[in-house]
């Protein structure tokens, strides 16, 4: 390990060291590389006190992030709210539920801003002037925005059928957007070939080990915001399977450095049934088999998740479980979180909410336990899954009499016969 750097790449399987370079695959056993931190070097630096004096962003945890010497960022990424969800608790009958709300992560309203911030810090240090990614949408937005801010060129590849909002939210930053005629797994495969051919920094290919470490900040924030305590359970959406393993890694580091008391946190993974290779592997105990995704939760639609085997292992070791839900339950989950807590999440958040409800009903998450739901993205990006559920209301003339007539017309409808205030105001069709 170099004298100036307290982290380096190592193979997750054979342990071989690779120093620091844009590389994600071990050339001995072809397994993924991961950033290894020298925790002893962080002891005395990564303390509650030092962190409390840091900026209100992920950079307050910089001592355990793989960020090159001299890199400074004024971009306030992360530090998203964590709060109790009392109305959701009543609805789904759990103990203490907390929402970690990355629907408002800046600058692009998903947790992907965290990973991209760390990846691009390294892209610059490695000398790339062009960066890119394969993306189901949120990553595309984050790479496009942050590369613009850093003055890097961006080339972003997405599956052709992505939600229009996610496409527009990438193009607006001036990034080159390439729609690929295939699903995410096809796009991903092409990106690995492009990264081989061109000297570009692909955040989720050759910069992947650095990128993935950014996810740890979700775990650090949860612990700090709970008063340096760990919850009993965490429910995490799974696409590539990386986030759940990194939150677990973050908690383990905090325990190792004495910032929190040792505790066995149970990790629960959430997927959509239409793309559930990891939850299926957890439930059946078999090795993970790839699937062809078919779900409205497109940000989770990765049929062959690279970190799937690690996610499965992390879940089972923790005493947790994984579940998956139908597209109807995903939409109902979005509506439930919005109506109960005023949080509008995208389809992945609907998956997390609906899976939490299912796990409580199964008795896997129990009364009296503290559970954190990781909400990773914003509902404004996937409004297309809801538009058909909410009818266009008739235009009422701006007169009190007309308004009263409008109200009585609502009362006349059989579905709103009770005419209580809730029914009058809520215009949506509930699929749950």
């Amino acid at each position, binding site marked *: 390990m170099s004298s100036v750097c307290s982290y380096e790449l190592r193979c997750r399987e054979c342990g071989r060291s690779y120093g620091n370079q844009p590389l*994600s*695959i*071990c*050339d*001995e*056993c*072809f*397994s*993924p590389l991961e950033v290894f931190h020298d925790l002893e070097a962080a002891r005395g630096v990564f303390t509650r006190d030092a962190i409390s004096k840091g900026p209100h962003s992920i950079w307050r945890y910089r001592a355990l992030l793989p960020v090159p010497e001299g890199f400074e960022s004024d971009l306030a990424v992360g530090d998203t709210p964590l709060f109790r969800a009392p109305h959701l608790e009543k609805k789904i009958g759990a103990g203490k539920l907390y929402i970690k709300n990355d629907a408002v992560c800046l600058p692009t309203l998903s*947790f*992907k801003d965290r990973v991209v911030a760390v990846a691009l810090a390294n892209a610059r240090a490695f000398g790339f002037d062009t960066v890119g*990614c*394969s*993306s*189901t949408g949120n*990553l595309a937005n984050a790479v496009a925005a942050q590369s613009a801010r850093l003055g890097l060129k961006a080339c972003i590849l997405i599956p052709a059928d992505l939600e229009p909002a996610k496409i527009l939210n990438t193009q607006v930053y001036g990034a080159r957007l390439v729609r690929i005629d*295939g699903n*995410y*797994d*096809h796009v*991903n*495969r092409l*990106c*690995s*070939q492009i990264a*081989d051919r061109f000297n570009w920094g692909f955040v*989720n*290919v050759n910069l*992947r080990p650095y990128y*993935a470490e950014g*996810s740890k900040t979700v775990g650090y924030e949860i612990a700090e915001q709970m008063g340096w305590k760990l919850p009993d359970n965490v429910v*995490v*959406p*799974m*696409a*590539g*399977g*990386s*986030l759940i393993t990194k939150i677990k890694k973050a908690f383990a580091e905090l325990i190792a450095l004495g910032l929190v008391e040792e505790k066995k946190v149970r990790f629960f993974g959430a997927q959509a049934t239409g793309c559930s290779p990891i939850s299926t592997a957890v439930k059946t105990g078999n*090795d993970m*088999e*790839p699937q*062809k995704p078919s779900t409205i939760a497109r*940000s*989770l*639609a*990765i049929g*062959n*998740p*690279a*970190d799937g*085997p690690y996610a499965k292992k992390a879940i089972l070791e923790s005493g947790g479980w994984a579940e998956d839900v139908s597209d109807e339950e995903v939409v109902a989950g979005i509506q439930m979180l919005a109506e109960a807590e005023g949080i509008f999440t995208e389809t*992945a958040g609907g998956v997390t909410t609906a899976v939490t409800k299912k796990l409580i009903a199964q008795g896997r998450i129990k009364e009296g336990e503290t559970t954190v739901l990781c909400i*990773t993205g914003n509902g404004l990006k996937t409004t297309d899954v809801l538009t058909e559920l909410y009818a266009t209301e008739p235009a009422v003339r701006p007169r009190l009499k007309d308004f009263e007539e409008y109200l009585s017309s609502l009362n006349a409808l059989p579905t709103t016969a009770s005419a209580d205030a809730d029914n009058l105001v809520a215009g949506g069709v509930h699929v749950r």
Partner: protein
Amino acid sequence: MQTTWWQEAYMSVRVLLPTAFTKHTGGKKELDSSASNLSGLVADIEKTFPDLALHLKDETGHLRKFINVYVNDEDIRFLGNEKYEFKDGDEVMLIPSIAGGC
């Protein structure tokens, strides 16, 4: 579909290897193979690149779990894996797993 001896003799698939392999192949990233199925193809790769053979399989003798095999853009596991019979002109790509999403 059964192939006859003369079809087999002329059958050829193009195999593309990832950069991660090139340390063990003298920099080569391609080969042609006349193998009829996956295990034959792996044997062909091992014969052509004996150094690579030391790294390609795990202790159970299977292709390492992070190596994905694609035939003409399709994951070979969707085509029947070992049961899939290569056809003349097939393009086979070996690619290590990569991640995305959360």
